[in-house]
């Protein structure tokens, strides 16, 4: 396996109960790059993303077949502690979900859990700055995280993920609740972060994928005979440029050019 591969999915199939949501995914996610997952709603992008740090363990009935290799280990090996996995692979969710604590504590909570030994005030400020929300927060660090607007809450959650300095950051539509200016700030942050971290991002915004992602994976869903719903699968995974300019599959071309349906 090449050393520049961060995570590798090998024949991954994820089911909710007996319903197979995504089937037979093979993917080598490169280290130190931003990879975007795109595709129509319900094709399993979030499902795959959650599989990368064993977040799916927490959904009753969700199971995974196949292998997810990270740092030479199968994440789904019995001996692997899912909590340790999540300390190294952080996550930002689709809906802002700050903790019912002060803004300061929202950041400090994760850092403390991860055994942070440095200057906490400094870490809080640095993380909030990186997430482009310091100006809004600096005068109300003691106030509840819920006192922020939806978009500010989302940036707080991004700051929270950055603060624990994981090796990989998973982001599920992190900008869907943000205005264009904060979105651009977050994208700048991603550019900076990818120097030290690997980032996977789910997005419905094509321009965003083009702007931030080095690699892009296109997922699609199809009804299968005998299945109870649409089964998602990976259509194409390549450099972003190739996906948007010369995709090898017709459905990818249809999707990225907005002729999907």
């Amino acid at each position: 396996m090449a050393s520049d591969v961060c995570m590798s999915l090998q024949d991954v199939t994820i089911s909710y109960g007996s319903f197979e949501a995504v089937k037979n995914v093979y993917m080598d996610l490169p280290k130190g790059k931003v990879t975007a997952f795109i595709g129509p709603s319900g094709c399993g992008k979030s499902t795959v993303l959650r599989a990368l740090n064993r977040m799916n363990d927490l959904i009753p009935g969700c199971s995974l077949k196949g292998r997810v290799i990270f740092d030479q280990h199968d994440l789904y090996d019995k001996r692997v502690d899912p909590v340790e996995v999540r300390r190294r692979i952080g996550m930002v969710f689709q809906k802002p979900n700050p903790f019912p604590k002060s803004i300061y504590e929202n950041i400090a909570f994760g850092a403390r859990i991860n055994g942070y030994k440095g200057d906490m005030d400094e870490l809080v400020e640095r993380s909030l700055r990186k997430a482009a929300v310091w100006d809004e927060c600096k005068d109300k660090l003691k106030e509840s995280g819920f006192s922020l607007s939806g978009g500010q809450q989302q940036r707080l959650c991004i700051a929270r993920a950055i603060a624990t300095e994981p090796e990989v950051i998973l982001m599920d539509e992190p900008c869907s609740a943000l205005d264009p200016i904060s979105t651009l700030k977050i994208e700048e942050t991603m550019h900076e972060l990818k120097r030290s971290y690997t980032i996977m991002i789910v997005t419905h915004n094509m321009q965003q994928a083009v702007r931030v992602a080095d690699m892009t994976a296109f997922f699609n869903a199809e009804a299968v005979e005998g299945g109870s719903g649409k089964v998602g699968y990976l259509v194409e995974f390549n450099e972003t440029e190739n996906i948007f300019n010369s995709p090898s599959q017709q459905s990818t071309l249809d999707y990225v050019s907005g002729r999907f349906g």
Partner: protein
Amino acid sequence: MRSAPPIDAFTLRRRPPQEKLTDIGFRQLTLVLAASVGIVLLAIFVTVFTGAREAMATFGLRFLTTSAWDPVNEQYGALIAIYGTLVTAILSLLIAVPIGLGTAIFITEDLLPRSVRDVIGLLVELLAAIPSVVLGLWAIFVMEPAIRPFLSLLHSTLGWTPFFSTEPQGPGTAPAILILVVMVLPIITAISRDALNQVPVELRQGAYGVGTTRWGAIFNVILPAAVSSIMGGVMLSLGRAMGETMAVTMIIGNSLNFSLSLLAPGNTIASMLANQFGEADGIQVSALMYAAVVLMILTFIVNVLAQWIVRRLSLRY
């Protein structure tokens, strides 16, 4: 997961063993605590049943149909107490349900200004919190003397029926029924109010939309929609009324003689336990335990029925 974390400031990427142990230990601890409900319940059943075994062997089912309660000759039958338990509980609900339901309709449908409704709602909840021993005290010194003239009137007009055939003279079944009404009324009102409040607004608006009158809407649409929760609440109150001890004990007279008359002193299983259990010995303890078994089975059936009604009927809406 061997490789060193990239930033040395974070020292806990690998979880130390004690942290994992805490995690597992906490889970097992809560599991045991959750299981304690089952253990306590089982222990209650086992304790009461074993206590009752001797009396069950001696008296058999005859215990349920005979009314002798004679510590001298060691003859025991719980008919008086069983009859008293059922009669007081059922009659009190027959009185309390219409009043409670009416009050609930009054405070949920906007027949009254909002502030008045809120105050009544608050008072209903506070009333439900009054300890039954305090109601018992009030029943002895205030209620019973106050209602005695009415009970006498009942006796003089309806004395030819067996139910009012005795002269009222202080404690008795009728005052016990009335104090039970006072006790369950707030519960029934609160449950009915919650049930009515949960009827979807669309259903209400739909009823008014097709031109029904207010009372037509209440009786044809809103009450049927809330009936399962209300019925469940009524059953729960029935369970409460059957198991209620203090207020009843203080006012029912704790008679050991059977009488059909509601104006005569009576007894219930709970008040018999409260009165005699502390001083009983020998087979009397076992007989009391047997009575406790009967009470437990009665309340168990009623409570399970209550849950079943709520679950079963609520599927329809």
